[in-house]
């Protein structure tokens, strides 16, 4: 296959699969995409960081993820997409029970080619354009709005931030670019390509969201249905800029197949009077390390982080939240819920840092972990730092199993034990699910119900 033909394939990941990761590769990718010089230099610099930086010595178990294995993951042979009858029965059943549309099932299960929802996407895009919003892939944004991308790319998450941010910065492809001008309030949540398009499930997605002063936008990605990926590493980077008095909500639900290392760096900069909300649901993957972060850089800025982690058999969800208070009168609210069962490990890893200048900060953190048996684990590792004497901070965490009194009470009303547990667990995650758009919440509740039935039945 010629480079030109290769260039037609979406994503640097396919290229690197064929060739292997090196400066030559990065140059070829950049060339194939027709990128400007500065971006090529950006990628090469990141590659340098990647090869020099060590794996983190904390967090989830990445012991089997050596550099050579990362390279070999990238080199997996193309065309290894599976046939429908090779899809595990449990996944097919889940699709059925969740009511996932036929058309979506094959794509999510990794069967066959991409699902292009061009026409739907077109219509959606027109709505946004009419509102003055720019929504396209980041690849396109580089071509259409090079200066804007150059001004912001890598400013919130630098390429040297961590090894996987470096990997992403070198090889990124796909992901979204959302730009909302001053005073524009986007009415409908911006759904990345109606959630089912290979660009949205790329291996090294890079997303950049910018809200100008007083703008408001809600961005959603991912889905609760089980999503098969032949790629074993997903290292995404999301950068969010909330300018003065703007409001950005970013909702993610991931249910990656159990072969995936999901290593994501998500960070937002909140300027004066702005609000950033991260709604982060982690249901799938073999290992997830993800700590949505808000830097409260402007006076009166606010962070709201809602995290849900469900760790089942063979899964490790190492998730949490980070808030850095750099300015006065800033506030943060973090709510984390986790469920561990069948040997799953759920860890809340959080950082709240209130710097000296951040006088008048208010912080509230609530972590609740549900542990359903004694071969699963629930850990919390909250790092709480306050450096001034005008801060109010409260952090509470609980770990335990479902209260048997509550199960008995529901059973005394004619509800079976399995149903009672399911009702209680859905109640447990209610703080999270009530922030989701209706269809997602319904799907999530059904999914949890299925998981509970699976573990109890």
């Amino acid at each position, binding site marked *: 296959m010629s480079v030109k033909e290769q260039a037609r394939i979406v994503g640097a990941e396919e290229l690197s699969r064929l060739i292997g990761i090196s400066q030559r590769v990065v140059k070829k990718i950049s060339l194939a995409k027709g990128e400007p010089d500065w971006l090529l230099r950006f990628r090469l610099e990141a590659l340098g960081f990647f090869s020099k930086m060590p794996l983190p010595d904390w967090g989830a178990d990445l012991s089997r993820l050596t550099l050579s294995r990362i390279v070999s993951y990238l080199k997996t042979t193309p065309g290894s997409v599976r046939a429908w009858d090779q899809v595990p029965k449990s996944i097919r059943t889940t699709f059925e029970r969740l009511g996932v549309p036929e058309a979506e099932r094959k794509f999510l299960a990794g069967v066959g080619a991409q699902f292009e929802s061009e026409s739907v996407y077109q219509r959606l895009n027109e709505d946004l354009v009419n509102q003055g919003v720019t929504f396209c892939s980041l690849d396109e944004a580089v071509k259409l709005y090079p200066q804007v991308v150059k001004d912001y790319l890598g400013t919130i998450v630098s390429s040297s931030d961590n090894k996987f941010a470096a990997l992403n910065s070198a090889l990124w492809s796909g992901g979204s670019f959302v730009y909302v001008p001053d005073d524009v309030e986007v009415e409908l949540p911006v759904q990345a390509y109606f959630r089912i398009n290979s660009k949205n499930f790329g291996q090294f997605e890079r997303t950049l969201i910018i809200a100008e002063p007083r703008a408001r936008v809600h961005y959603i990605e991912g889905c609760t249905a089980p999503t098969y990926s032949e790629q074993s590493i997903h290292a995404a980077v999301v950068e969010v800029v909330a300018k003065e008095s703007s409001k950005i909500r970013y909702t993610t639900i991931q249910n990656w197949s159990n072969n995936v290392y999901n290593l994501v760096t998500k960070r937002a900069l909140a300027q004066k009077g702005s609000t950033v909300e991260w709604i982060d649901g982690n249901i799938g993957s073999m290992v997830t390390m993800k700590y949505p972060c808000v830097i409260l850089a402007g006076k009166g800025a606010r962070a709201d982080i809602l995290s849900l982690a469900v760790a089942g058999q063979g899964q490790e969800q190492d998730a949490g939240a980070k808030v850095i208070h750099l300015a006065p009168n800033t506030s943060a609210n973090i709510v984390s819920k986790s469920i561990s069962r069948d040997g799953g490990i759920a860890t809340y890893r959080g950082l709240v840092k209130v710097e000296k200048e951040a006088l008048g900060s208010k912080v509230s953190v609530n972590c609740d972990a549900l542990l359903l048996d004694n071969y699963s684990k629930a850990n919390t590792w909250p790092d709480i730092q306050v450096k001034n004497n005008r801060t109010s901070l409260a952090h509470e965490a609980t770990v335990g199993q479902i209260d048997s009194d509550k199960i008995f009470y529901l059973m005394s009303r004619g509800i079976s*034990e399995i149903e009672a547990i399911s009702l209680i667990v859905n109640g447990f995650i209610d703080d999270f699910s009530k922030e989701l758009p209706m269809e997602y919440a319904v799907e999530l509740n059904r999914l949890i119900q299925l998981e509970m039935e699976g573990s109890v039945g």
Partner: protein
Amino acid sequence: MLKIENLIVEAENKKIIDGLDLVLPAGETHVLMGANGSGKTTLGLGLMGSPEYLVNGSIKIDDQDLIKASADQRALAGLFLGFQHPQEIPGLNFRHFLRTSVNNVRRFRNQPTYSVFEFSKLIKKTAVSLGIDASMVDRNLNQDCSGGEKKKNELLQLLLSEPKFAIIDECDSGLDVDAIKVMTKVLKRLKSQGVGILLITHYERLINSLDIERSYLMTQGKILKSGHGKDLAKATLEFGYVS
């Protein structure tokens, strides 16, 4: 009829109820009294199948022995317990929960189930008749409710469950005078529908206004005295638990 024979209820190797017999015919209202710690609440929980206790003996509803049945099976068989300490379950919508419960019972009895819309109308109507704020049904189960409100929620569930036999454990505490009047009406209505009621209460007014077929005085896990009508109950109220 609800027939309890030689009931033994143990917890942590201690016998809390040691050989209790009681017969509650359909349509009758019996009153159970006893000092704190006499085992009244344990009796209710044990009859309903609480996993906290080891229970032996027999609990028969119309010749069907429930002694090995799980709590939900007992509910389906027509037994209802109005808890002294109702549970608060975060995030569980009251209306959704109750409709699930009521429909389970109706399905078991081969009765048609309620749609979301039908049930919503029914629960609101019933709530209002009990003096419960209609907005309560949209909240999470007993969340942020006062003691009195939780008791009223128990009565609401009692009415909608349509049980055969109901054990009401001090659901009058925390209720104001008007609420007690409502509760009286409810109990009278249930009686007329043939529901057998075992009422655990200290409340004189309630006892006075109801037709009571039998009273019991319980002490240390046993029924010490029992008598026709409400005389024993009234005597206990007047003279206290120490005979």
